[in-house]
């Protein structure tokens, strides 16, 4: 990255919109504002705040990186989603499991159940097992058009091997339904038809919202006079263009925790650590490995739907700064309920009636907040017992995340970190970096770009030859996405051999990551 040009990193969360301006490796200013119904308003407020404080002109920014949980939140809360049609090109196969089997009913109620199956698709080796039935496909397209549905998720058998079948099918649909807005499954997922189809459906249902949100963010920055290119953060902590984000909002769905973990890494300079984000209601623990979040290995549910997206491995426990404290010194109980964002109204130190973990921290003298006289009558024994419980719960969760009994460094981010005051068992050091409360925005600002490959390779000519080809494809994809060629590194390589086959076909997944060439996307 250019070491002198300032960049604006933004995190548009569900509650707050945070921003930082960074120059090189330094956080110059940071600010936090409320997220607004039209996300552009919140962005204007927070961007203006940091620009003013830094005494910088909007035109001096060289890039804007935005992480947002808008799309995943919308999907999980079933709001702002469009009706979507699932077109699967796979007959005579797959009819035993039509699209959206196993989807939560409340989601089906919103996006509808419009599944269509037509003939076509490929074997693992690329041979087609059935001709694409263009006539049936055109009829399906007309039916979808008649229903007034534009969003279509199109999936064909072994599409990662034969993406052209999906492309041809999309052309047929567009001829009969020119307004159709089609997500091709191979663009959002790898092998595994159901998971890939689900990802395409989720993506389709979010496209309208993504256009609205991205337009609003662009409009806000334009209004401020920011001319720099705008990027969004995707799941693996790397950047995509705004155009790509409007077409593939699904790739942003776990950018929130990823940015928080990577931001924490950056703020401390650590490459391997546990990152603990303590909020009002929950504490989320992530594991930082070589500067990137550790990902889960098993299937991932997004809003109750299985996809093949890999997500940061995050452990959430119901303990935060607003967690309610009950009982007496010999039988203290924590939560799991919290006063949440109402902390400043309901907790004792702010004149409320509920005893919270923050009240205990104030009573213990670890932090000065609100009116300490409101908690002065709490007995020391209850304070000690509560602190014991808080630290024990946190220590247990750290132990769950660890991969060995070796002590690990812990990075505390999030506003709730004040509830921790003691050394933590199993940790080598507890870091509370400056700007920890805007770690998400920092994570967005430092993002890199990536390229991925996930398809079958023939190992007949030798494993090394095939793997070299896979790595080269991933590297090229990263460069095409805007990476500085010299900076690209292979950060992940997985091989999955296939049984019951004559050929030596192996599924290979590779991910390459590099630094952003400013102004590249």
């Amino acid at each position, binding site marked *: 990255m250019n070491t002198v040009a300032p960049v604006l990193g933004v995190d548009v969360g569900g509650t707050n919109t945070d921003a930082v301006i960074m120059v090189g490796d330094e956080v110059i200013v940071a600010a936090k504002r409320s997220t607004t119904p039209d996300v552009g308003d919140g962005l204007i407020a927070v961007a203006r705040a940091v620009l003013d404080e830094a005494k910088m002109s909007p035109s001096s920014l060289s890039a804007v990186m935005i992480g947002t949980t808008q799309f995943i939140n919308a999907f999980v809360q079933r709001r702002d989603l469009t009706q979507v049609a699932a077109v699967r090109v796979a007959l*005579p196969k797959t009819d035993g499991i039509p699209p959206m089997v196993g989807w939560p009913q409340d989601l089906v109620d919103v996006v509808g159940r419009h599944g269509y199956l037509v003939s076509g698709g490929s074997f693992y080796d690329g*041979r087609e097992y059935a001709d694409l039935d263009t006539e049936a496909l055109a009829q399906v397209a007309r039916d979808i058009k008649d229903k007034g549905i534009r969003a279509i998720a199109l999936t064909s*058998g072994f599409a990662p091997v034969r993406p052209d079948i999906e492309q041809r099918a999309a052309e047929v649909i567009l001829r009969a339904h020119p307004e159709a807005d089609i997500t091709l499954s191979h663009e959002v997922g790898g092998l595994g038809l159901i998971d890939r189809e689900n990802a395409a459906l989720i993506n389709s249902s979010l496209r309208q919202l993504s256009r609205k949100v991205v337009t609003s963010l662009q409009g806000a920055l334009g209004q401020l006079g920011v001319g720099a290119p705008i990027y969004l953060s995707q799941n693996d902590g790397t950047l995509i263009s705004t155009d790509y984000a409007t077409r593939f909002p699904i790739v942003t769905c776990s950018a929130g925790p990823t940015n928080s973990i990577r931001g924490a890494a950056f703020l401390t300079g650590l490459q391997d650590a546990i990152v603990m984000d303590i909020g009002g209601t929950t504490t989320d623990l992530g594991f930082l490995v070589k500067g990137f979040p550790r990902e889960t290995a098993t299937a991932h549910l997004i809003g109750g739907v299985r996809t093949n997206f890999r997500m940061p491995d995050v452990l959430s426990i119901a303990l935060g700064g607003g967690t309610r404290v009950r009982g007496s010194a010999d039988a203290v109980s924590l939560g799991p309920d919290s006063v949440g964002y109402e902390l400043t109204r309901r907790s004792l130190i702010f004149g409320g009636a509920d005893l919270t973990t923050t009240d205990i921290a104030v009573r213990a003298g670890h932090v000065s907040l609100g009116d300490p006289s409101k908690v002065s009558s709490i007995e020391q024994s209850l304070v000690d017992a509560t602190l014991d419980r808080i630290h024990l719960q946190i220590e247990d969760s750290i132990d769950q995340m660890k991969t*060995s009994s070796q002590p690990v460094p812990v990075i505390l981010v999030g506003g709730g970190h004040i509830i921790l005051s003691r050394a933590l068992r199993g940790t080598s050091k507890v870091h509370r970096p400056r700007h920890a409360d805007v770690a998400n925005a920092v994570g967005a600002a430092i993002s890199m770009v990536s390229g991925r490959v996930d398809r079958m390779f023939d190992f007949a000519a030798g494993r090394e030859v095939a793997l070299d080809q896979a790595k080269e494809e991933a590297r090229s994809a990263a460069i095409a996405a805007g990476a500085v060629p010299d900076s690209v590194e292979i950060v992940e390589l997985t091989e999955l051999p296939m049984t019951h086959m004559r050929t030596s076909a192996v599924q290979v997944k590779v991910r390459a990551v590099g630094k952003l060439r400013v102004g590249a996307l």
Partner: protein
Amino acid sequence: MYTITNDIDVRDMARGAVLLGSGGGGDPYVGELYLRNQLAEGRSPSIIAASELADDAFVVSIAGVGAPTVIIEHLVSTHTLLRLLEASETFYGRKIDALISAEIGGVNSMFPLALGTRAGIPIVDGDGMGRAFPHLEMTTFGVYGCAATPSVLMDDSGNVVHVHTKTNRIAEEVVRSVCASLGSMIFGSFYPMSGRQVKQLTVHHTVTHTLEIGRRIRTARDSQLDPVKGVLQFLNAPAEGRHAREIFNGRIVDVVHETRDGWHWGCVLIASGAGREPEFRIEIQNEYLVARHHGRTVTIVPDLIAILDAESAEPLTAEMLAYGQRVRVIGYSAAPIMRRPECLKVFGPRLFGLDEDFRPVEELQGAE
């Protein structure tokens, strides 16, 4: 006879089927969704004990044959399976009275259930191995003289292949070749049997076991108890001839996969929480074959090895293993019938190239 009517039961069964798969058998997710779709369409399975069959009833195994990576793309076709049933009845010249799974571990636990549900044919509560194995001949049915063929194989394009071989071992070779020729995923009817044979040769109650295993893990998890202990409470029932215990708890430090002769080979190395040195090693040939602690065997085929996610106790297939995962490993006794000398000649350790004799998990010293 009993039935299941809700998705939670189906998910429990699928989870249990992964555990009994001993690492292989394929992810039952496809079968699980297939069965859930049947329930969603208002049908439910009739699961019957083998003892409920008439002696002269006609029972066949319906199974998918193929590569796990292909099944997740080609899924399953109801149209194909109904045609397979019809073609099989014509071929055998008999109406099929019940279906049975040949292999309860993995995805083939679910296909007979779902198809039986769709076609209104009862499903026998049992199977031919109580786990997963890589070869067609590796069943109690086969060991005790029941032929895997004549058999009808079918792909989704309507190609039909009749197979009638001299031995079950050759049937395995032929079916594998046919499968490779037809895109690496086919369905077939195998092991035509009488009700009397089923009663004698089946590993009983394994459908119910999948349900019970999945349920124990889920309920322990939901009530914040240790789900591994929860499932062990069910699996370890010496009075009923079942023995199980946790044989290791640690972190995966290496996973090696390779394809040789069309099989998935490999091994997984696990270190205990404290160290980095791999102390525990599990050999893989499609399934987990043998688990050794510091070189000392603690569980060996046909006894089962299950690798569970350390937190959730979700059973993991060999494909799901990854470096850095925290896992707990269970050794579980195969059904008594599976441990008899005649069975060990067909699927004992030496049949997998291991140079040692079978010893029951309950007689081997534990790792911990």
